[in-house]
């Protein structure tokens, strides 16, 4: 059956139009004819093939991504191994590891990278743990007809200006902010609390709020895919609800949790706005450092090395998490 289904997709229906009216040289030449005909027919056949049609169709989008994403990323990779010049020359074409040595040994840079990593990990943990019950509720306890509405309500805040949402947390947490002015007018405090803004915790809180929908959706999708009869089977076989959740639901939801972790972790490591607004620019994360090296300090090679290092950290953490989870799942089985 699968073969036949595949055969349906492989039809020449979407092959480029004009070639269909050309005579097929291979077929007319017959089996005895070789050499040039063979070559020509291979090209001819490729032009009629599904692969050619697909590649042709995707080429504008792929080219765009190559030119505007891959080429720039390759550029900063190259920059990161070059030497910084003065403001006029900017970059000297001399190969060096100096930028990476600076990035990984200088205490300031190491501190910022560690902070970025720990902040994003905290954000991820908070977001995913808080999001799981919501996804579980929508998937298991909301009537099918109302699920779309819940998802819609959950996603709306994500689509409203990120900048304004971040700024609103500053309004809430600020010296004269909503919390302080609210508590003061209620007579609960005499002086505004100063420990709630401009620190790592407020950054974590703001980011956790900003990325909440990102965590809910993948978990929800994974939970939706779980065959409900499996859970009934679990209970039928004498497991308690809690054990069923632990032994059946959770392992099956893990792919969604992994997706949620990655989708929150990766962009939060590189967040720029929140440290700037909520941290008051005094608690920079890696993105702020990259920006200041690239533009303010005009040290493009060092900025590039920082950017490449950031991407490396993201990749390593993401891979480590995926592998860890794969092991966890295997042990579970």
């Amino acid at each position, binding site marked *: *059956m699968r073969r*036949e289904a595949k*055969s349906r997709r*492989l039809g*020449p229906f979407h092959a480029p139009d004009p070639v269909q*009216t050309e*005579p*097929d040289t291979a*077929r007319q030449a017959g089996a005895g004819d070789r050499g040039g005909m063979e070559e020509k027919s291979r090209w001819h056949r490729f032009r009629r093939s599904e692969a050619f049609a697909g590649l042709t169709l995707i080429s504008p989008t792929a080219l765009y991504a190559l030119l505007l994403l891959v080429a720039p990323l390759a550029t900063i990779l190259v920059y990161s191994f070059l030497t910084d010049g003065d403001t006029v020359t900017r970059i000297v074409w001399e190969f060096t590891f100096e930028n990476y040595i600076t990035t990984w040994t200088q205490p300031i840079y190491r501190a910022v990278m560690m902070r970025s990593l720990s902040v994003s990990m905290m954000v991820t943990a908070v977001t995913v743990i808080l999001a799981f019950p919501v996804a579980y509720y929508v998937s298991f306890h909301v009537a099918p007809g109302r699920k779309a509405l819940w998802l819609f309500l959950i996603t709306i805040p994500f689509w409203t200006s990120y900048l304004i949402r971040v700024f609103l947390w500053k309004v809430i947490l600020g010296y004269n902010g909503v919390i302080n002015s609210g508590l003061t007018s209620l007579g609960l405090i005499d002086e505004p609390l100063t420990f709630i803004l401009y620190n790592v915790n407020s950054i974590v809180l703001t980011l956790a709020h900003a990325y909440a929908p990102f965590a809910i959706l993948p978990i929800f999708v994974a939970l939706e895919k779980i065959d409900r009869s499996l859970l009934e089977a679990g209970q039928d076989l004498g497991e308690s609800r809690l054990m069923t959740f632990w032994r059946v639901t959770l392992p099956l939801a893990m792919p969604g949790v992994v997706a949620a972790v990655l989708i929150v972790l990766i962009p939060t490591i590189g967040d720029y706005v929140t440290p700037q607004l909520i941290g008051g620019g005094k608690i920079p994360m890696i993105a702020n450092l990259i920006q200041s090296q690239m533009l303010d300090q005009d040290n493009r090679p060092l900025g590039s090395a920082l950017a490449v290092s950031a991407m490396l950290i993201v990749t390593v953490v993401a891979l480590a998490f995926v592998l860890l989870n794969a092991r966890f799942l295997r042990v579970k089985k």
Partner: protein
Amino acid sequence: MNNVPQAAAPAPIASRPTMIEFRDVHKYYGDYHALRGINATIKAGEFFSLLGPSGCGKTTLLRTIAGFEDISSGAVLIDGKHMVDVPANVRPTNMVFQSYAIFPHLTVEQNVGFGLRREGGTPAEKARRVEEALEMVGLKGFGKRAAHALSGGQRQRVALARALILKPKVLLLDEPLSALDKKMREQMQVELIRLQRQVGITFILVTHDQEEALVMSDRIAVMFEGQIAQLADPETLYRRPNSRQVANFIGVMNFLPAKVLTEAAGRIAIDVQGLGQTEIDATQAPGAVTGGEISVGFRPETLTMLYEGQTTTERETPGTIEEVVYYGDMTYYDVRLDGVDSPVRISMRNVFGRPVLDIGTRTRVAWSAGALVLFR
């Protein structure tokens, strides 16, 4: 339906002109050899079926006629013309898809009249043709309906009307009845046969349902693994399958091991386990038996169970009933004949007043040599 001119008797299949010809058709998907040398001719006005299990290549073969599938080598001819490089949209064929492929954003009449867009004629003329086509499939007055509001059977009819309105030389039907329930399917089978007689063009049906193929077709090509295993009319296919594979795919067939004793003057003497020695006609070995160890097949309904005191002019063999399956109008008995390793299945029409026998009953089974088929 009533004004269809009743032709005296349709010309026999063999004498009709050829409509479609496959010449050593091969089809590869990468390394996968989907069609392995198909040779066949389909006649004008024939109701032809491609029958086989999923993955046997029957749909692929149908799609090479439609032009949706390129062939790797060989040739497909429609009405004497090579179809290589003739795209699907100009071939004289139209297709009824398995999913019906009713355009969901158009009304019934827009669906049916879709193919007329490129044809000449006034709007009134076109509207008349749409109305005629709808009437032909029994959907008169449904023209203004939205396509997505139709039932499965109605969609099927719209798909038929849409394909037939262009007066194709060949109508291709890709498992058209598989999505319908049993009752509806049987009704549509009869209607398709009527429709085919009415329009008189070649119908080519792809199906995995042997009963459907037997009921509807003039001829059937049974396909396995990209090859045609047997091409024959339904009766020949049922009574004289040329291989155990074909015999097993179409209906139920009992097999017993046997030995060829002598072969002379169109007669073959054989020794069958449990049944003993007998002689059959050479035409009862369509698969070309060469001698030595062979097997003999016979259909469940060619056997009769004899009740106590009943006599027969045929040969009879004693045995014990091992299993009884009651079907209402029929009862299936699995009987182990004396001296045979595995039971054979016998189907008996239930007659009022005659009891269904119990498991363990000793019985006698009547059989005739003329119903046997020899297999390698």
